[in-house]
């Protein structure tokens, strides 16, 4: 894949599909990601503060440590702040008759292919944050691992799970 082809794979047409028929996530998924990241950042900040305050009681924390901690904290915070936008812009999924394709990632972009024939179990899950945004994740379990399509609108998630389930049942019926 050339560099141009790699950048084209993220372009979306007026129907919300990429040139090769991939779906994008709903816009409100970004809100759900941000709330999740804010919670992570709050927990991380609390841990950093407690570690720093606790260490300061016993010895003078060297300035190099403070600087290292600050840099690490700033990098994580920047990742959490920018991550959802990049994740949203790059997240693509496609389900056709034989396979489930998921393209996603912030720094590392992954392309997962799950042959539908290998699917053992399907699950639609909604956490409290996703519930707030009327979103759900579809978890696809194969004998060798798990893949998930995240931040889908609830009816879309239900429809995907139902159609995949029907497809798998059809395969099993034919085999009997």
């Amino acid at each position, binding site marked *: 894949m050339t560099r141009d082809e790699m950048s084209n794979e993220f372009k979306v047409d007026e129907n919300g599909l990429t040139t090769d028929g991939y779906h994008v996530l709903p816009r409100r998924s970004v809100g759900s990601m941000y709330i999740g990241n804010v919670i992570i950042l709050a927990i991380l900040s609390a841990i950093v503060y407690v570690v720093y305050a606790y260490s300061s009681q016993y010895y*003078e924390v060297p300035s190099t440590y403070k600087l290292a901690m600050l840099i690490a904290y700033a990098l994580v915070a920047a990742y959490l702040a920018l991550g959802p936008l990049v994740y949203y812009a790059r997240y693509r999924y496609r389900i056709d008759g034989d396979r489930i394709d998921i393209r996603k990632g912030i720094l*590392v972009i992954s*392309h997962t292919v799950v042959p539908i*024939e290998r699917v053992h179990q399907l699950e639609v899950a909604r956490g409290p944050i996703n519930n707030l945004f009327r979103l759900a994740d579809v978890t696809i379990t194969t004998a*060798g691992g798990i893949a998930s399509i995240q931040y889908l609108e609830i009816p879309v998630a239900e429809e995907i799970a139902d159609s995949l389930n029907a497809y798998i049942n059809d395969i099993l019926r034919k085999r009997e």
Partner: protein
Amino acid sequence: MNGEDEAGSASEAAPRFERITADEEFTQHPIKVVEGVLQSVFISAVMVFSFYFSIMDADKEIAEKYSLYISLAIFISILGAMTWVSYWRWRRTTIRFGENELTVFRDTVFKKQTRIAYSKIASTNVNCGIINRMTDTSRLMININSSVNAFSPELTLTFSTEVSDRIRANLSQKMYKNNVIPADEPDTPSIVTITKADVVLHGLLSQPTASAIFGIIMFFFGIYQMITTTGDFVSGIVAITLALFSYVVPVVAMIFHYSNYKIYRAGDTIYISHGFIRTYRKSFKVSKINAVRIRSPLVPRLIKRYMLDAEVVGLAASDGDNSSNRSPLLCPMKDRGTIEKVMSAIVPEFVYDVEMKNQPREAAKPIFIRAAIWSLVFAAAAFLFYDTMVNLPETEGISMGYIAAAVISVSAVVVAGLFVNGVMSRRIVQYGRGEDKFTFLVGVVDRKITTMSFDKVQMAEVEGGPLSRPYGLARCKISLLSSIGSQNIRSGYFDAEELESISEEVVARIKDGRYDYRKYL
């Protein structure tokens, strides 16, 4: 190599065991009651022991008079209750072998009926511990083809050895649907001769290089601490204990585990037996193998020694099997020629002509940039460590020159190691692809050559990071069903499109019918 012909003809031998009829009902051997009680004796003893000490602490007067009697009474009561429960469960558990499935029925307060279709059984294994050997019994372990319960067998049944062998032979007949009970003959020669020296060598050298190095360093550090520190042996003992558990114990366990190793193939079934104190007999269908792997950690490779194992789901052969022993070993440490001959005799389905490709020239860039980033991270950590040492009041009087020299030396070795690893990785890591199989060769230090069938790939993931994407490169992660539940096998950096074609091929084979699920039942 010997016994190939004998092994091949073994499946044609007359049945050695009487067939089981549908109305025949089995009960386990009474030793099952003892096994059940023994499992809980240790835990009960620890609980009662801690109870004994807690009441001793609570009140001295009462403790002096009654604590021992109370504790003993509790222990005997628990033991009595456990014996009764174990006896009741044994008495009320029956096993039947129907036309298509086996049924285990337990008619106790908690009624339970377990049905396992013969077509779903991945393997039947026999495990004999000390008690079993004293009583001429064995534990028959039945595993199904599932990653959910891959760590332990679905059923563990104890019978006399004769009954156990008869059931196992009959199960093999039902599972593999041939009219002849497949051979599991003690006299069938092994495909490969494994001497005691081979087993010892395998035990010593098959440990991952990292744990071997850690164990050796800890051992010498412990000895040094005990010699140089007067009066305080704690840190030395801790270091030696770490060395024991990270290297010595696994080595000894491995030697005992693989003593008397024997492997042969009869028809489509592979039979493996080994063990010194506890003996293991495993059998599984070749079609259940998901991948075959030739492994060689650093030291064995220097003396040209390799080992062969397979990824097979549902092979738990012991309740307490440790994870490193779960993938069935098809051949302990041997030279490459023998390993390839064993592979051709035992798993010819995984032998194919393939032209292995090295990582492309462009892969050097992401590899070295990664090495540079990790070097920077390590250098920063080393600097922080040095800075801490300088500022610690306890280090007053110690020459900082030595610490600086040590930190710089270690950093230089690590950074050099990272770059040497990069150079070697470019040269060593390979990928090859055949008509229905593909192979990943990875590992600069501990080398692994994994051959997988496209039909066994459950999921494929191609990952391109910011360092590799600009060059059109990616790495691939293959998910397989394996003996440890599920396992990911990673490739090196190759052309992203080429790696994408793995999943394309998996899907294409399903679509056009080249993948036939019936072959793998």
